């Protein structure tokens, strides 16, 4: 037996062993996954599936009664419309404020941008209740803004900036703006500046090179931010509940009242299903366009 043979045999035995070890390793990893997965299945997936069933299975038979009520009763339809309108308005506001800010930050040196980014992150990690409280202090009838405007003589009587749409939009945009700025900024940072120089070199004006080179390249960030803001805005509860008026009721508030005051679980389940389906559709679009891994791994 030559040394070569021995080596070959040892290698062969080694690979069989390593295959068995590999299988054991994989099973070991699966055992590590199970506790978290079981918790999520029992306390997240299963309850939500139950909710869906409750919405279509009532009194021992299948029924679409609850869904018919959503479409037929004017009040409920109006809540759905308000929810979409507010989510859209907030997304547009975040885009209008967030895109220029992200652009500006992306043109700064990385160190400076990181420092200014702290100003974006501090509100991001401050409780929504704290921020809503601050906006209530600023915007209410006897609030800071109204006092200042009155003292300056710019207005004769206090403006209504709260318990109406203005309050909801100011508060929600404030909460959701970081979700627009972070992904947009991350994508803009990654854009190769040489492309802009090349455009300039080829005779493009700054505006042209922005519109035809930078803007298209920044769109993935814009799409990520917009979809995220829109999804999160749809399910908002705290800000509209505290800062909105009667005409700004969103679907999450309706679901809450249905359970807490009307005790109508099945109807609340139908409303929740509508919200869930819409959320998941947008989530799926997001996944298709950009991949889930980009969602929370990025700038946060």
């Amino acid at each position, binding site marked *: 037996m030559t040394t070569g043979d021995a080596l070959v045999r040892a290698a062969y035995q080694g690979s069989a062993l390593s295959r068995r070890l590999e299988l054991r390793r994989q099973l070991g990893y699966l055992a*590590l*996954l199970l*506790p978290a997965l079981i918790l999520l299945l029992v306390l997240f997936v299963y309850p939500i599936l139950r909710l869906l069933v409750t919405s279509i299975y009532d009194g021992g038979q299948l029924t679409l009664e609850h869904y018919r009520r959503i479409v037929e009763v004017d009040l409920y339809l109006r809540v759905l419309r308000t929810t979409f309108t507010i989510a859209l308005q907030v997304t547009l506001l975040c885009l209008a404020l967030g895109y220029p800010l992200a652009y500006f930050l992306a043109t700064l040196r990385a160190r400076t941008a990181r420092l200014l980014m702290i100003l974006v992150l501090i*509100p991001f990690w401050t*409780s929504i*209740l704290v921020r809503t409280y*601050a906006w209530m202090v*600023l915007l209410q009838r006897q609030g800071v803004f109204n006092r200042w405007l009155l003292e300056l003589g710019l207005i004769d009587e206090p403006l209504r900036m709260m318990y109406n749409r203005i309050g909801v939009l100011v508060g929600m945009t404030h909460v959701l703006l970081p979700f627009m700025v972070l992904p947009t900024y991350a994508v803009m940072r990654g854009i190769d500046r040489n492309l802009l120089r090349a455009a*300039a070199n080829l005779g493009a004006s700054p505006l042209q090179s922005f519109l035809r080179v930078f803007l298209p390249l920044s769109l993935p960030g814009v799409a990520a931010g917009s979809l995220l803001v829109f999804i999160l805005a749809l399910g908002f509860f705290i800000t509209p509940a*505290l800062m909105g008026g009667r005409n700004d009721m969103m679907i999450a508030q309706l679901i809450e009242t249905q359970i807490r005051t009307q005790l109508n679980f099945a109807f609340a389940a139908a409303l929740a299903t509508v919200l869930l389906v819409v959320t998941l559709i947008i989530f799926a679009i997001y996944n298709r366009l950009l991949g889930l891994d980009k969602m929370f791994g990025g700038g946060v």
Partner: protein
Amino acid sequence: MAEAATPLGRLEVAVQPRRRRRTIPWARLVLGVFSALVLLYLVAPVLIVIPMSFSAAKYLSFPPPGLSLQWYENFFARSDWTSATIQSIRVAFMVMVLSTVLGVAASLALVRASFPGKEIVNLIIVSPLVVPAIIVAIAVYGLYVQFRLVQTFWGLVLAHTVLAIPYVIVNVSATLRGFDIRLEQAARSLGANGWQTFRHVTLPLISPGIFAGAVFAFIASFDELIVALFIAGARGRTLPMRMFEGLRMEIDPTIAAVSSMLITFSVLVLASAELVRRRSQVE
């Protein structure tokens, strides 16, 4: 410039002055001012709440007419505020421990192992981050009513753990992906068993991710209102629930004191998470 020798580098040097001539200063100025205003909008609440909390006035006024600690005294003197705070800390602490242990274990599996259905598992794990809290709240509420877990401490802890686990997994997975698996192989080849390898090699190296995940998990539970509203009950009232009540009834300036403490708390926690991250990068 080192690249000046290459054709591209020379081009860069040549183009630079022309680019500078082409930028429009006033456009840049407008952009800068606009961005400063947006940043001001983002930090305004923080700037308002902290001075307000030291106000000597009995009603809302800004700037405060005088300084006092009355709202802080009020907070510590009133048991409805302190008991809610203690309850929140207890819940958030248990949530942090549970979700960190489960999340780190799950991250190891998700990054290292390949198995059928991994895509779906990944999807399930991140979805608590996007499914609206109100849906989770009423779904879990429905389940808890049946199993008599409503208004129990552990019921709330488990529900919050579901919401917190994704934060741990996202953070820990990110550090695990940048981890050189050969270090573990080296430890194993030197005779360490699986647990020893994990304890002395893997754990120290991924600790920044674990720390960040744990911090986010704590905050996720500590700030959570909607699920708590449904399942905590009046006796297990958390701090966000107490604040929500306060904001619904009258705008009680005690909330300014609470808010300032919360802001200070989250800034400190974030700063320490950032420090841990930086130190690990330097090493």
